[in-house]
C-alpha cells in the first residue's frame, strides 16, 4: 500500500510538470493552430538561463525564478513576432519545419554555450521527506504549478486582456473586427506559453539534472497529456497532465513487462491510441469543417 501511495504521489508531482508544459502547448495551439515541437527545447533553454543566474551570478533563487519567467515571456513573444508572424498563413508542413529548426537551434546552442556535461540544478525546497512518501521538492512542485495554473485561470476569466485572448482563440476574424489586436494577442499567447514551459523546466531539472536533451521524454508525455485532455482545451491539458503522470508511474511500477525501460513506448501507445480512438481528447471540442 505504501508503494502505491508513494508512486501515486510521485505521479501527481510529475503530472504537475507535464500539466504545465501541456498547457503551454495548448496555448500555442490556440494562438496559431499548430503544435509546438520546440516547446521542450525552449523550456530547456530557459532553465539554463535560470541556472546561469543562480549558479554563475549568485542571484537568490526566487529572484532568478521570476527573472527567468519574464525573460522567457519576452523570448516567446520575440519568437512569435520574428519567426512565426511572417508564415502564419503557411501550411502545416512549413510550420513543422520551422518548429524543428528551432528545436535544433536551441538544442545545439545550449550545447555550445553550456556544454553537454550534466549539471545539478538547485531546488528551492529543503531536502525533506514527508513520512517517506513524498519529498519536499515534489510537494513544492505541485504547489507552485497549482498556484501558476490558478493565476492563469483567473487571468483568462477575470481580466479584459484574458477575454481578448480567448476571443482570438475562438474566432480571430471576429476578434479583429471588434478591435482586438490579434497579432499582439498571438505574441502574448507565445509569451505565456514560454513562461509556463520555463516553469516546468525549472521544476524538473533538480530531478532529471540539467542537460541539453533533458526535455525529450518530458515533451512526449506532455504531448500525450495535451492530446488526452483535448488539444484545444486548457483545462483538459492540466487534467491530462496529472492523469499521464499518475498512469506513467503506476504502469511503470506494476506492469512488469513495461517497467521503467519501456515508459516511452507506453507514451507512444497512449498517443496513437488517443489519436485513433478519441481524436478530440476527453475535453476537446468536436470540430466540423465545411468542405
Amino acid at each position, binding site marked *: 500500500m505504501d508503494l502505491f501511495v508513494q508512486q501515486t504521489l510521485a505521479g501527481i508531482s510529475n503530472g504537475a510538470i507535464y500539466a504545465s508544459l501541456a498547457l503551454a502547448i495548448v496555448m500555442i495551439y490556440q494562438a496559431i493552430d499548430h503544435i509546438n515541437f520546440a516547446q521542450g527545447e525552449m523550456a530547456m533553454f530557459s532553465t539554463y538561463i535560470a541556472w546561469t543566474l543562480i549558479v554563475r551570478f549568485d542571484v537568490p533563487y526566487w529572484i532568478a525564478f521570476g527573472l527567468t519567467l519574464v525573460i522567457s515571456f519576452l523570448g516567446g513573444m520575440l519568437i512569435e513576432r520574428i519567426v512565426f508572424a511572417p508564415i502564419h498563413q503557411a501550411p502545416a508542413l512549413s510550420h513543422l519545419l520551422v518548429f524543428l529548426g*528551432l528545436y535544433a537551434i536551441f538544442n545545439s546552442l545550449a550545447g555550445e554555450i553550456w556544454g553537454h556535461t550534466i549539471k545539478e540544478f538547485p531546488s528551492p525546497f529543503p531536502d525533506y521527506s514527508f513520512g517517506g512518501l513524498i519529498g519536499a521538492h515534489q510537494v513544492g512542485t505541485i504547489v507552485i504549478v497549482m498556484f501558476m495554473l490558478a493565476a492563469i485561470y483567473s487571468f483568462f476569466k477575470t481580466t479584459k486582456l484574458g477575454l481578448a485572448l480567448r476571443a482570438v482563440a475562438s474566432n480571430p476574424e471576429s476578434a479583429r473586427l471588434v478591435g482586438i489586436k490579434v497579432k499582439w494577442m498571438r505574441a502574448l499567447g507565445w509569451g505565456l506559453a514560454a513562461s509556463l514551459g520555463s516553469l516546468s523546466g525549472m521544476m524538473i531539472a533538480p530531478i532529471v539534472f540539467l542537460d541539453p536533451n533533458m526535455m525529450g521524454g518530458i515533451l512526449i508525455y506532455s504531448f500525450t497529456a495535451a492530446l488526452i485532455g483535448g488539444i484545444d482545451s486548457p483545462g483538459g491539458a492540466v487534467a491530462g497532465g496529472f492523469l499521464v503522470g499518475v498512469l506513467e508511474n503506476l504502469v511503470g511500477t506494476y506492469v512488469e513487462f513495461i517497467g521503467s525501460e519501456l515508459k516511452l513506448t507506453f507514451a507512444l501507445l497512449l498517443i496513437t491510441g488517443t489519436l485513433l480512438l478519441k481524436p478530440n481528447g476527453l475535453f476537446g471540442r468536436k470540430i466540423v469543417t465545411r468542405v
Partner: protein
Amino acid sequence: MPEVENHAVHPDSKSGVPESSSKTIGLTDVEWRRLAFVLSLSFAVILPFVFEGFTTFQFTLAGIYAIAILGLNLLSGFNGQISLGHSTFYGIGAYTSAIMINQLEVPAYWTIPAAALICLSFGFIFGLTVTRLEGLYLALATFALAIATPQILKSKHVEQWTGGVQGLDVYKPDVPQALPLEADQWWYFVVLGILLLMLWCTKNLVNSRSGRAMIAIRDNPIAARSMGINTSLYKALTFGCSGLYAGTAGALSAIVIEYVAPDSFTFVLSFFFLTGMVIGGMASIPGVIFGALFVLFLPNFAEDFSKNLAYAIFGILLIATVYAMPSGSAGLFSAILTRLKQKLNQ
C-alpha cells in the same frame, strides 16, 4: 480542411512548361537533361578511384542516406504525409540485416531484400493504422515512434536478438574475387547501383497511374476520393513503399558500417532525413542526392568551427528554406536554369 494551396510542397512541375522543340545552344531540353545525367553518372563512377578510402566510404553513406531520403520524399513530397519516424524504419532495416547476418548466418546480400520486405510490411501496417491522421497529428505520432525506438531496441525483452545497449557486430562480405576493387570501392558501387535502381523505380512510379493517385491525394484528398481513389489504401501503400526504401538503406548501412547500436537510430536521424529532403527539394527526385550530400558533409565542415553548431546551422537553413526557397535547392536550381535559358535564347 484540405489545403489546396500548399506552397512548401509545390513540386517544381515540369509539365507546366511545354516540351518545346526550341534549342538552347544546339540541344533540346531532353538532350540537355540526358547530357547532365551522363555527366553526373560518369562523375559518380570515377569518384572512388579519385578519392581515398575514407572519402569513398562517406560517399557510400551519402548514397545510403539518399535512398532513405528518396523514400521520405515519396511519402511527404508526393503523398503529403509527414513522417518524423523514418529513423525507426531505417533502424528496423539495419537490425533485420544485422540479426540475420550475425545470428542466422544468412549471406549479407540476401538480408537487403529481406529487410526491405519487413519494412514494407511494417510501413504498410503502421500506415494503415495512422491513415486518419493528418498534418501535425501524423507528425506527432511518428515523432513518438522515433523517440520510443532506441528504448525498444535496448529493452530486455528483445535483448537476446538485438544485443541490447551494446548492439551487434556485422561482418561485411568480401569483394568478389574477379574484381580488382577494394572493399570500400566495391560497396560504393553496390550502393550506387541500388540507388540508381531506386531512382529509376521512383521516377516510373510517380509517373504511373498509382503515382498520379498519390499526388492527387496530396493535393486534395476529398477530390481524390470522389474520383474513386481508395485514399486509405494508397496512403498505407505509400507508407509501406517509403518504409521499403528506408529499410533498404538501413540494411545497407548496417553492412557498410559493420555495426548496429540502438543510439544510432534516434530522432536526430529522422531530423537529418527531413532536412535533406527539404533542402534537396520536396517532390524532386534528383534533389535527394543533393540533400543527402548536404546532410552528410555539412557537419564535417561545421565541425571546424564547433561540433555543436552543425545542428544550429541545419536549423537556420531549414527555417531559411521555408522562407526563401520553398521548393528547395532543386526549385532554386531549375529557376536559375530557366532564367539562364531565357537569357541565352534572347
